[in-house]
């Protein structure tokens, strides 16, 4: 017994010696003089501070510049409340739609072979490569008074542009790739064998989807939804074109921030901006957690 303990002690001692050697070897590889290293690191930190940390601090500093009461008063304004509500509604609609579309598209692309597949993959990426302003303009061309469906819509008294449906449509278009993009590589890597096994065991298509496919991609789905949501809430360009900027009705949070800022209402503008900044921070944290989960899933399947 004592022998064993002695053994393990000496083992760990040599172990730590080996580690020290490895660290020394690593240090030797860094041939840059200390001064150069310090300068490079300082530059990187400076850059990060000026371009990332400082803006974030300024947003919150400005938001609270007249005190915490002014901050909450700005958020409680009917206009602000309406913008927050609209943003949440639009995000819910577009995330919901893109969850369904993204799942269907990823499923089709990853699990089946069909002509035109490459074209479909390219098409899914279209919203990423097109400027959001143009994405918005497309909907004006389709549903505007002079647009293709304009007169028909007027006859049936359906309001799409300058109303919630138009904003939701534009946002959905702009955020379409997120869920599909997150899922396609994941589903392609997992292949179709588990689904084939499920079907040969007597499962129906729906049972296979809900019991086998979905549980295997749940972290990927959450990841896609998270990014989709962040973009949906923050979208400015496309929404700006189709919204019409009707105060208290068709202004989302990003639009309201701009309007308030242009009217020199800095506290109100930055109070709403601070909400968007917080959304970004929460998204970042959740993203890190989800990425870890996805990596673990990958490791487990590697064994």
């Amino acid at each position, binding site marked *: 017994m004592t022998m064993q303990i002695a053994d393990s002690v000496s083992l760990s001692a040599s172990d730590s010696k080996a580690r020290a050697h490895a660290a020394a070897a690593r240090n030797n590889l860094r041939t840059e003089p200390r001064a150069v290293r310090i300068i490079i690191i300082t530059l990187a930190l400076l850059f990060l501070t000026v371009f990332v940390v400082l803006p974030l601090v300024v947003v919150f500093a400005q938001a609270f510049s007249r005190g915490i009461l002014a901050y909450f008063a700005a958020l409680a304004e009917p206009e602000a409340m309406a913008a927050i509500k609209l943003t949440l509604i639009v995000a819910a609609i577009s995330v919901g739609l893109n969850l369904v579309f993204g799942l269907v598209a990823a499923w089709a692309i990853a699990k089946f072979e069909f002509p035109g597949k490459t074209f479909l993959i390219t098409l899914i990426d279209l919203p990423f490569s097109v400027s959001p302003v143009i994405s918005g303009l497309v909907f004006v061309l389709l549903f505007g008074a002079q647009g293709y469906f304009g007169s028909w819509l007027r006859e049936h008294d359906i309001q799409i542009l300058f109303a919630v449906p138009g904003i939701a449509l534009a946002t959905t278009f702009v955020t379409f790739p997120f869920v599909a993009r997150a899922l396609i590589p994941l589903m392609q890597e997992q292949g179709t*064998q*588990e689904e*084939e*096994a*499920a*079907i*040969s*065991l*007597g*499962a*129906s298509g729906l*049972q296979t989807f809900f*019991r*086998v496919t979905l*549980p*295997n991609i749940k972290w990927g789905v959450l990841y896609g939804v998270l990014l989709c949501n962040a973009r949906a809430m923050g979208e400015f360009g496309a929404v700006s074109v189709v919204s019409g900027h009707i105060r208290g009705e068709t202004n989302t949070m990003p639009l309201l921030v701009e309007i308030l800022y242009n009217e020199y209402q800095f506290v109100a503008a930055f109070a709403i901006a601070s909400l968007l900044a917080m959304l970004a921070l929460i998204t970042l944290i959740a993203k890190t957690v989800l990425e870890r989960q996805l990596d673990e899933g990958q490791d*487990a*399947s590697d*064994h």
Partner: protein
Amino acid sequence: MTIEVKNLVKKFGSFAALDGVDLKVNDGELLALLGPSGSGKTTLLRIIAGLDWPDSGEVSFNGEDALAQGARERHVGFVFQHYALFRHMTVFENVAFGLRVQPRAVRKDEAAIRSRVKELLDLVQLDWLADRYPSQLSGGQRQRIALARALAIEPRILLLDEPFGALDAKVRKELRKWLRSLHHEIHVTSIFVTHDQEEALEVANRVVVMDKGRIEQIGSPDDVYDNPATAFVHGFIGESIVLPIQIGDGAIRLGDRQLDLAADGLAPGASKLFVRRHDMLVGPPGSGAFEGAVQHVRNFGPVQRAEVALSGGETIEIDAPRDKELRAGDTIGLNPRRYRIFAG
């Protein structure tokens, strides 16, 4: 359950994976589909399972058309090469899956499902792993769980696609024996695909040898080894010496040497002579059909393997018993105890 396959054709683009396959599998049989990769054996298995569809041909189970049914209705147990276990489910839930997805009208209650799964895990001797996830199991354990999962639905037919392909040699051997005894126990009509001839010959009642989408030979393991029907089968099963020969004027020639072998009934022209290594008997010079000089001798367990340069110009490897004295530089006579000649 008997399976009958008639004139099955399946093309992937211009590549014919199956090129007119006819096969009859008897009730309770353990059949091996043996062939190199790309020979169409896995495609045949997947079509029988309903995971792929043929371009033309028929598949019937007990005389009824199987192609009219999807994979779901066919009630076929399929074991995948890479196991395809559900990675997010425990071993227990993997095995229970087939029972849980049954239509409500015929589904067993929870207690019955539990006892059935327990029974299957006992059968594959892994009941102690019930709460683990597939990623925590070894390859051999995963394969046995995959088998238990396939057996849970009491399949009419059991299909195994390269069941031991991804395992190391020692585990393969154990699982082979185990599969044989398991089949003996449950007696379900089974087909397994393999590219490993030893596996096919050791496990199966009958072996189907395939190449390029066609069946080359169907027979018992002894049959395909001792009486190969085609040059491909002779070359693929067991190690063969292949010599290019010329037949003409009632004689067989290797290079410019006339061989002392009967040429009766053989078509004239270029042919190939196939001999097993251990069927080349060593004798004194001038005693056999061939003559050659020994180049190297190495010992392989019970046999010694000698490289011999034949006087016809070819160099071959033969297996001789260890008690036969062979040394590099010796000139020896060689007589094929049994051999086959195939045109081409």
